[in-house]
């Protein structure tokens, strides 16, 4: 038996069908007018579109069959998320899918029965991991204190995605000296504890959430929280990478549209090599990102993430965030004066890049982790 370096990539018939459906769905539900109409809205998404996604079964995609899902695995969410990025279609899908994975991987049987059928039906979950700007932190100041037979949570979390619409939060806290993940229901949190953040990317929503004083029952502490935390961070990084890859492809389309229609000095500007060649670089960067996310989607399964999968997720995130950052930046520049306006769609991509770069670890964070995996 000889095993060559793991370069496997496969797309099941099921995934191929999801890819087609997702592309068509996102394209038809989220044209640029629809995207722009949501920029100033409270929730950032259209509830009717979200409801349709629930009815299509997408919110149950990663949920085991016995809990009301279709058990297709996180790999099947990649084509959905990539196309959401491609058409800037925002819903709580990413937040909720990561939260569902935390319960699937780290929850007890009773925790799974309690939460997963609800997620499949459209309950919105989200992760509350950060204390501050530091993605590389190994500790948290959010404390789980003993309170007779239960606990009390003490601490505030930073940049919690979709906090204002979440039905439940999975909060990273510390109990004595060990990290735990605890589930907090939205009904336990006073509205004043949620402080909306102003984001560069107006298609996204996030808030700081103060969990201080909230009572936590034993049944709300995830059975294997500490153990699965690294995997959840990697899954988060992979989903953000998939969304960023789709978004980079959209930025590329926008550049190509402009370069093939805009004339200056009597020539289409796409004929100038100073614009043509960097646009090819955008394509190449996007292509690499896409290869990584589908490679990671091929490797990842229900087991704990192995070394190859970790490498694939981290490379996905590093590559996709850089690709989108470059694509958005060049999209603005190549639109000239138009690119400097709010009216130009390039602004959507350069702003999204500032979200994608900093969610679940920036490229440098992941390269630093990769260095440990690949060089030592």
């Amino acid at each position, binding site marked *: *038996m*000889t*095993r*060559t*370096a793991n*370069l*496997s*990539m*496969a*797309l*099941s018939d*099921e*995934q*191929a069908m999801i*890819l*087609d459906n997702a592309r068509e769905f996102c394209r038809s539900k989220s044209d640029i007018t629809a995207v722009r109409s949501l920029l100033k809205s409270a929730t950032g998404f259209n509830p009717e579109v979200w409801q349709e996604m629930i009815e299509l079964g997408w919110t149950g995609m990663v949920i085991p069959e016995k809990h009301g899902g279709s058990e*297709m*695995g996180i*790999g*099947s969410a990649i084509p959905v998320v990539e196309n959401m990025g491609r058409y800037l279609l925002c819903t709580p899908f990413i937040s909720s899918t990561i939260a569902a994975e935390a319960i699937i991987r780290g929850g007890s049987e009773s925790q799974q029965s309690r939460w997963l059928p609800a997620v499949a039906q459209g309950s919105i979950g989200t992760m509350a991991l950060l204390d501050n700007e530091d993605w590389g932190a190994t500790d948290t100041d959010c404390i789980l204190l003993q309170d007779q037979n239960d606990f009390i949570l003490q601490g505030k979390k930073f940049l919690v995605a979709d906090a204002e619409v979440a039905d439940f939060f999975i909060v990273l806290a510390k109990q004595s000296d060990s990290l735990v993940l605890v589930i907090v229901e939205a009904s336990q949190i006073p509205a004043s504890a949620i402080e909306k953040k102003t984001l560069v990317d107006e298609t996204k929503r996030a808030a700081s959430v103060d969990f201080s004083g909230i009572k936590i029952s034993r049944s709300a502490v995830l059975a294997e929280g500490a153990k699965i935390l690294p995997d959840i961070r990697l899954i988060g990084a992979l989903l953000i990478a998939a969304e960023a890859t789709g978004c980079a*492809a959209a930025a*590329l389309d926008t550049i*190509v549209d402009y*370069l*093939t229609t805009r004339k200056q000095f009597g*020539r*289409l500007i*796409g*004929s*100038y*090599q100073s614009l*043509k*060649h960097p*646009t*090819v670089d955008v*394509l*190449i960067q996007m*292509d*690499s990102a*896409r*290869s*990584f996310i*589908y*490679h990671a989607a*091929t490797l990842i*399964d229900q087991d704990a993430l192995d070394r190859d999968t970790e490498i694939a997720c981290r*490379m996905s995130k*590093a*590559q996709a965030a850089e690709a989108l950052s470059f694509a958005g930046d060049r999209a603005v520049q190549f639109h000239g004066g138009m690119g400097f306006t709010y009216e130009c769609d390039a602004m959507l991509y350069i702003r999204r890049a500032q979200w994608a770069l900093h969610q679940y670890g920036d490229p*440098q964070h992941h*390269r*630093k982790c*990769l*260095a440990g995996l*690949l*060089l*030592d």
Partner: protein
Amino acid sequence: MSNNINQELNSNVEDAEQSDFRKGVVDWIKHNNPKDPGFLLPQTFMEVGSEQVLDFLREWQYKVWSSGYLGMAWPREYGGQGMSRQFQQIADEEMKKARVPICFNVIGLGWAGPLIIDTGSDFEKQTYLKGILTGDDIWCQGFSEPNHGSDLGSIQTRAERDGDEYMINGSKIWTTMGNFAKYMILLARTDSQVDRRYSGLSFFLAPMRVPGVTTSPIQKLTGDYGFTETFFTDARIPANCLMGEEGHGWRIAMQTLQYERGAEAGAAGGVSILSTVMNDLLRIAKDVQRDGKPLMRDSVTRDNLVKFLIEEHALHLSESRLKIPALCSDYPNSIALSGKLRGTEFYRRMRQYALTLQGASGSLYVGDSDAVEGGFWQRAYLNNFSTTIGGGTSQIQANIVGEHVLGLPKD
């Protein structure tokens, strides 16, 4: 989903026969891989600059062939073994891994040979194939001409029919091993009257050792020889050297380029290039000191190395994605057409970086006793420009991708 993944993984698993064969190859290499000859061996067939190197490589190729590890999938009657390609691939993989010397007769093994097998006459197969494998008959290529680079439509070398012969006049450039070659695959103009500049071209399997053919060596950026400029002055070659029909040269040349680009199978095999991958670069970085500490502890260096590793990984993964059309639907030609640009530019930058890893030793060159790995990396970096320039420069490649993949307008 799990089914497909299993299939994918299974493709990396060999059956017993292949596995035994691989063991045999490994064992053979252990006993036959030549000792260090005392001079730096070529990394590609474009660096065969002396008789000494040529003799060494010819002897090596003959040994590989006579031991049954070259031309394994070529027909038996022409020196091959008629076996499945997989066995040749296994042999090549192990030889590459062991970094054995190259099989130098690349134009014959990789381009002319498969072309003759696929489209040649019995006479051509009988005459040319075996000598390619044994290394007795060295082949070169005569497509490019001075001042035309890779614009083959501008070819001006003339071939005029005169009885049983063609008379050739003109010149070719970048003829690898032109000074050693017995045959040339030659593209020349047989009809200058036609409107379309491609349709007057013809393809010849031309002898080099005839009166009127002279070569002049070209010294490369690396200081080595390996290329020539080749001049034809009323050189007469037999009319049966014409391959196919007069005027069909362009089509045959395009088919030849498919073999060159690896888009078409059929090559005899053998290691054609001593590749340098990231693992080789990491190997040299391991022993280097910087600021009094091992270089591999330097965080800037680590970040740079990981960036290169990500890029190398992406190159390989793109090949995997190419096989899944559903994942290439928006720009279907993208991966195939950008392959040369991505690959050659990656290796150029990676080799350039390799020199900076060597600290002060980075300035040493082939011939210096302190040079890291005999100056291999310095030479590899300079040589790499043959790939970012030859076969269409990176700038032309970027135009091709921009225009044919993205649909951007021509300059």
